């Protein structure tokens, strides 16, 4: 039977619509899914008889009576003056769960000893376990029964420090060593001030002792002028002759050398020259140090401190000066009066320090039997 065009279109449209509905039902959830409601939590349970439950309950250890009330304690210290034992911690897997009390959500919190929240024990619903004495790592890793914490009248307000870590494994036993404790500081006892000796070899004025360090590098003290020039020699009686020409000087030098009259000293081997070895620098220093230790300049004038005096003294073979022979042979840089002051100080030094004789080698007496001592105070003026 022929189907007209309108009927055929209706069939096609109907078929397509049905096909689309079918596809919508099959695949529509993929593209147009809604938020599914959360799945219901399911828990597998095993059914036991009442007899088996009674038997199991009989085998289980008795929990403290106040344990179930822990989550509702308003204050830890007030409700639980005695800390419960560690076995009552619900998180221990070997612990049978009492069915009468739900497991408190906050129970693990006391196992975090390092948490600062553990310090706020008043508001915590957790059991009053001193968190400082039950480090979490030990509790969670060990299967040994933990010792009960010591009873305390109150919970510690602050956690104590964590225990030292376990010793590292080693083949040999090594005892722990601790550094030696530092000695306790000894309190300083007041000591009365003492004064330095009245004598000194260097002047430190009050201003120098207390003077602050200058802020700049500018010198605080002006440069010291040069020493006083030497006194001019007495006017010569006659003006010296003009310098000879070079040829004359050469000729004079040659003549003087050839004639052997270059000096007033006798020729080698004919005079009183020392025959032994010369004085060593150490021997000279010994004499110098011995004399200068008695050269006292504390009571001389400031003018005298500018005067250099030269003193000659004859020595005896035992190292003693002949006091009568001490004489000033010259001075420089001062007046006659200041030279006399310095000569007196020099003479006193020579005599005072020779009470037992100067340390001079006897075998070289020919060298030191005649001494010329130059006393130069210029290095001491500013001390």
């Amino acid at each position, binding site marked *: 039977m022929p189907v007209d065009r309108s009927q055929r279109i209706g069939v096609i449209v109907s078929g397509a619509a049905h096909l689309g509905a079918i596809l919508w039902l099959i695949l529509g959830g993929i593209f147009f899914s809604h938020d599914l409601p959360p799945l219901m939590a399911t828990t597998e349970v095993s059914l036991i008889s009442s007899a088996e439950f009674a038997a199991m309950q009989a085998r289980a250890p008795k929990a403290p009576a106040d344990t179930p009330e822990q989550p509702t304690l308003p204050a830890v210290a007030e409700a639980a003056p005695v800390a419960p034992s560690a076995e009552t911690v619900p998180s221990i897997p070997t612990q049978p769960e009492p069915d009468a009390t739900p497991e408190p959500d906050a129970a693990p919190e006391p196992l975090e000893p390092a948490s600062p929240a553990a310090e706020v024990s008043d508001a915590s619903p957790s059991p009053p376990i001193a968190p400082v004495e039950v480090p979490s790592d030990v509790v969670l890793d060990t299967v040994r029964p933990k010792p009960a914490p010591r009873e305390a009248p109150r919970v510690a307000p602050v956690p104590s420090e964590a225990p030292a870590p376990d010793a590292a494994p080693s083949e040999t036993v090594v005892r722990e060593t601790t550094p030696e404790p530092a000695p306790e500081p000894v309190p300083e006892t007041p000591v009365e001030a003492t004064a330095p000796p009245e004598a000194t070899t260097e002047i430190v004025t*009050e201003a120098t002792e207390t003077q602050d360090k200058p802020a700049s590098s500018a010198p605080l003290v002006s440069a010291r002028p040069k020493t006083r020039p030497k006194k001019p020699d007495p006017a010569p009686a006659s003006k010296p002759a003009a310098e000879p020409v070079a040829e004359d000087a050469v000729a004079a030098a040659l003549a003087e050398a050839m004639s052997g009259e270059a000096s007033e000293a006798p020729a080698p081997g004919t005079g009183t020259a020392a025959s032994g070895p010369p004085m060593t620098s150490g021997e000279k220093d010994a004499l110098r140090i011995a004399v200068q230790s008695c050269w006292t300049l504390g009571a001389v004038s400031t003018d005298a401190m500018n005067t250099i005096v030269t003193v000659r003294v004859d020595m005896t073979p035992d190292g003693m000066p002949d006091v009568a022979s001490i004489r000033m042979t010259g001075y420089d840089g001062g007046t006659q009066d200041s030279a006399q002051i310095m000569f007196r100080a020099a003479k006193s030094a020579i005599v005072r320090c020779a009470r037992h004789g100067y340390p001079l080698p006897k075998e070289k007496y020919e060298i030191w039997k005649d001494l010329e*001592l130059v006393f130069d105070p210029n290095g001491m003026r500013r001390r």
Partner: protein
Amino acid sequence: MRIANQVTVLAALAMAIFAVVPNAAAQGGPLRIVIDQGVIEPLPFAAPVFIAETPEAADMAAAVTGVVAADLSGTGLFREIAPDAFISRITSFDAPVAYPDWKAINAQALVTGAVSVGSDGRINVKFRLFDVFSDAQLGEGLQFGGAAQDWRRIAHKVADQVYSRITGESGYFDSRVVYVSESGPKNARLKRLAVMDYDGANVQYLTDSSTIVLAPRFSPSGDRVLFTSFETGFPRIKLLDIATVTSRPLAELSGNMTFAPRFSPDGGTVVFSLEQGGNTDIYAMQLGTGQTRQLTNAPSIETAPCYSPDGSQIVFESDRSGSQQLYVMPAEGGEPTRISFGEGRYGTPVWSPRGDLVAFTKQHAGRFHIGVMRTDGSEERLLTASFLDEGPTWAPNGRVIMFTRESAGATGGAQLYSVDISGRNLRAVPTEGAASDPDWSPLQP
């Protein structure tokens, strides 16, 4: 030809050297040693109690000996050996000295003396000084006579002689110091002039405390004192005669402030500061005629003038450079030359009696110093340092400086101190109560 001549000269010199050197080495001259380091320490001396040649002179002899020893020890240059250490006893003024006994106790100087009291009550003191390690007397024996009440002056004169013979410079013990004696709290201090021996003895007050007085200055002869008085409410210079203890204004300069006076070395002129219209300059007045002459003319403050010992120059302080510094100008006035260039402020310059140094007060870094420098400003040395040191004055021999040291705080007071120009021997001068602004007299005749 020229080369030949040079060769000849060199050969001649070489021959001369080789010929001379052996001779010099062979000389039998003395062994020469240079001593350039000594010991700076007080010289130990012994001063046995002077012999009492009359029975009534026993106490006086002990007192005179004590003053002599105290004078010498107070310089810091001498150290008295305790009498307990003496081996020898001086039983007679003319007895020979046992030098070994004094050497044994390291007495480098020995002072012996004798005191007698005459029938008229006058005392006679004689002494001898010995250089122990030279086994000789040092100088001639000397004696002084005077009224019994002047026994301290006589003792000072003995000490001056000993000091001078040993050190080579004049003494300063027989001298006086005029100063401002202070009393009362710091905010209501009463001041009056006083004069005393250099060691604080024999205090004599010259004014009462009804008027503030400042800056007393001795005349070269020591018989008069210039000072600044606030009697009229303004500072005015007055001249006081010590013998009669009477004073008069130096000049009638009404309406102007005059201060910081000082005598010229001849005593005929007074140099001072005068403030006119807010400006301070230095003037000089002839005491005989009253003629006044202006020496400086600058818009800055010039004050604290002081003559050099020869009277040819004046050192003063001025802030003309922007800070307080020291200047030197001719005594007749003229262009000044600045001599202080260090950090801080300089003031109150005083020329040394020797003429070689200028003492000054320096303020730097919150502290005060007494220092000395050459008259050209070189070799500046600070001798002291404290909360407040000021107003130096020279001893007659130019070896010691006396100054005022004031301590801090409401209860702090002023006191006189002395120090050696080397910076050693800083010590307080004993006074009756607080004291300030000293001026040292020349040696008394």
